[in-house]
């Protein structure tokens, strides 16, 4: 994947061999079919929730399903218009995940209003409406990105601007006073009025754009060999600077914003992009040792990190206190078992933040292992399609950008699901498209729009087709030199 352009160039230079190349399937048809399928699934899930929660099944459900389909059909039409060769699986996967997330958020709304009625208190404000609004904003941004960024290579021209903006967005919540930026101990918000944004989610995309462009420009530098140690070529010490900067940034996020997840995500992205650009395992090993060093320092210096690790090691040591959330999540997953309790028939609302950080355990309780496995495969399809676009696209910047975007999503999913299922210590990140949370949803729609743009470039037929049909092969023009009558000219 690393040294892309060179070998590919010769392939395009040759004219296509078939005289009349059949138009490549664009996949727009199957995309629409899958979108309709996703709409059926989401409407069915909603109907099941309503039935199991003893709500009245009305025709309104069908309207909701139709509205959902309409929203994504608009996105589909935008793809048809501006990225006609884009990958057909990315948008339907996103639609299904987002729809299932909305259904689960609605289901938790019902549970919390039930509980409020039981306790005789005021019903809490429903989260569904806000999330639907965020979905609409996200899709609007999706369409806008597709319409404005007609060629992903343009982005590399704004690399330093993007990097600078990303840095500011990342640092902003840490510098603002806590009254604006702090929620539940983590300073990663900007809140004005009733609306909160996590600028880190957008900084993620901007910094990936910056790093991809930066590494394409400076790739030779990073693959310059230093000393050989243990059969491995170490980079020169002075080339370590970007990695050190990324490391410092991650630690800074950890210290000033107390956000374990974002800091982990940033460092992982930088490391993987470095590896993808240079194909050197030594970068991975150096980066991982940096990571271990950072983890040890964080564990010893910061109390909140230590608490997270202790909860991870034994959530039941302090079950009614700090371990309550993950303990309840594990009980929820256990209750779900293989087949789940059925949508709307479980008690996922017992877990605090069941709709955002812990939506995975909510889904696990009601859909079981079978359902979770299906959702994981949908995520997997999404990520492999992104990485495949990275392999297929012909320019280095596009390759690195698609790799970074896909990997960012993959890593986020791993960190969240690993945390909820107690594989790794819990870090507060949201599951892309499933979790409640506006910034994450909107930013991920922008991310997916960029992936679609790159996959469109990867799958579009080459434009340098000869305009007129070539003459038959035997009559093709060569510099024919007529042999003189003597018959000696052809002799070598």
């Amino acid at each position, binding site marked *: 994947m690393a040294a892309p352009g060179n*070998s*590919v160039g*010769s*392939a*395009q230079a*040759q*004219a*296509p*061999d078939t005289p009349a190349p059949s138009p*490549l*399937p664009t*996949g727009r048809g*199957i995309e629409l079919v*899958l979108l309709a*399928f996703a709409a*059926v*699934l989401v409407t*069915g*899930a909603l109907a*099941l929730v309503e*039935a*199991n929660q003893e709500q009245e099944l009305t025709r309104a459900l069908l309207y909701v399903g139709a509205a959902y389909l309409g929203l994504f059909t608009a996105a589909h039409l935008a793809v048809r218009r501006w990225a006609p060769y884009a990958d057909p*699986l990315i948008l*339907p*996967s996103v639609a*299904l995940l987002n729809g299932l997330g909305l259904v689960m958020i609605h289901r938790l709304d019902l549970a919390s209003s039930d509980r409020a009625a039981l306790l005789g208190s005021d019903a809490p404000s429903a989260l569904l409406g806000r999330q639907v609004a965020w979905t609409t904003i996200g899709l609007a941004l999706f369409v806008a990105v597709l319409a404005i960024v007609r060629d992903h290579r343009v982005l590399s021209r704004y690399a330093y601007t993007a990097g600078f903006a990303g840095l500011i967005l990342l640092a902003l919540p840490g510098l603002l006073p806590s009254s604006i930026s702090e929620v539940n101990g983590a300073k990663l918000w900007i809140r004005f009025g009733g609306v909160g944004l996590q600028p880190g989610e957008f900084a993620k995309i901007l910094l990936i754009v910056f790093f991809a462009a930066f590494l394409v420009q400076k790739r030779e530098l990073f693959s310059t060999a230093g000393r050989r140690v243990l059969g491995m070529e170490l980079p020169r010490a002075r080339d370590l600077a970007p990695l050190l900067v990324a490391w410092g940034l991650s630690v800074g996020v950890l210290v000033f914003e107390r956000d374990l997840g974002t800091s982990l995500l940033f460092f992982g992205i930088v490391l993987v992009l470095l590896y993808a650009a240079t194909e050197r395992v030594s970068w991975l090993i150096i980066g991982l040792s940096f990571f271990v060093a950072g983890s040890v320092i964080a564990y010893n210096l910061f109390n909140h990190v230590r608490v997270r690790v202790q909860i991870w090691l034994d959530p039941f040591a302090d079950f009614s206190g700090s371990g309550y959330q993950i303990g309840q999540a594990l009980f929820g997953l256990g209750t779900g078992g293989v087949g*789940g*309790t*059925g*949508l709307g*028939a479980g008690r996922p609302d017992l877990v605090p933040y069941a709709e955002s950080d812990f939506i995975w355990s909510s889904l696990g309780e009601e*859909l*079981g292992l*079978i*359902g979770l496995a*299906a*959702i994981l*495969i*949908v995520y997997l*399809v999404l990520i492999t*399609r992104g990485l495949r676009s990275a*392999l*297929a696209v012909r320019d280095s910047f596009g390759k690195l950008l698609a790799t970074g975007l896909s990997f960012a999503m993959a890593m986020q999913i791993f960190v969240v699901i690993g945390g909820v299922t107690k594989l790794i210590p819990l870090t507060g990140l949201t599951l892309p498209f499933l979790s409640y949370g506006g910034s994450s949803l909107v930013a991920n729609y922008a991310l997916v729009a960029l992936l679609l743009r790159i996959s469109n470039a*990867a*799958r*579009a*037929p080459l434009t340098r087709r000869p305009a007129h049909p*070539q003459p038959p*092969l*035997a009559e*093709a023009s*060569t*510099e*024919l*030199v*007529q*042999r003189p009558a003597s018959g000696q000219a*052809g*002799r*070598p």
Partner: protein
Amino acid sequence: MPELVLQLTRAGFLALLWLFVLVALRVVRSDLYAASGLRAILPGGGRTAMRAGRSRTARQLLVTHGPLAGSRISLDSRPILIGRADDSTLKLDDDYASTRHARIAQQGEEWYVEDLGSTNGTYLDRAKVTGPTRVPLGVPVRIGKTVIELRS
């Protein structure tokens, strides 16, 4: 909701969810060879010929155009000399061919064509052959007005 209905809808929803996954995976599979990804990585032009050529080896050489059209030469491990010279393996009667025009030789499983300094050049498909170049099955090699192909 009755227990039976609950169980049936529960299983039905999971089945539908997996059906979605299977349809998606089918698209992934059908897309493996269809779209540009693989083609962009493979070197050379003839993609259909190349995929077929990977598994089979060339057994004969067929002249498809030119004065000798229709003649075949069975291939063994020996190199094929092409030109107007009397000792060529394929002796061309072609005014545009040189005396010793090109050589097709086997290396491992593959056959390579090499131009021997001819006046009018040797062409693999439409690209001029400058060094030893691999000849996939079914891809035309043009020498003067003669076109030959490797067949299995």
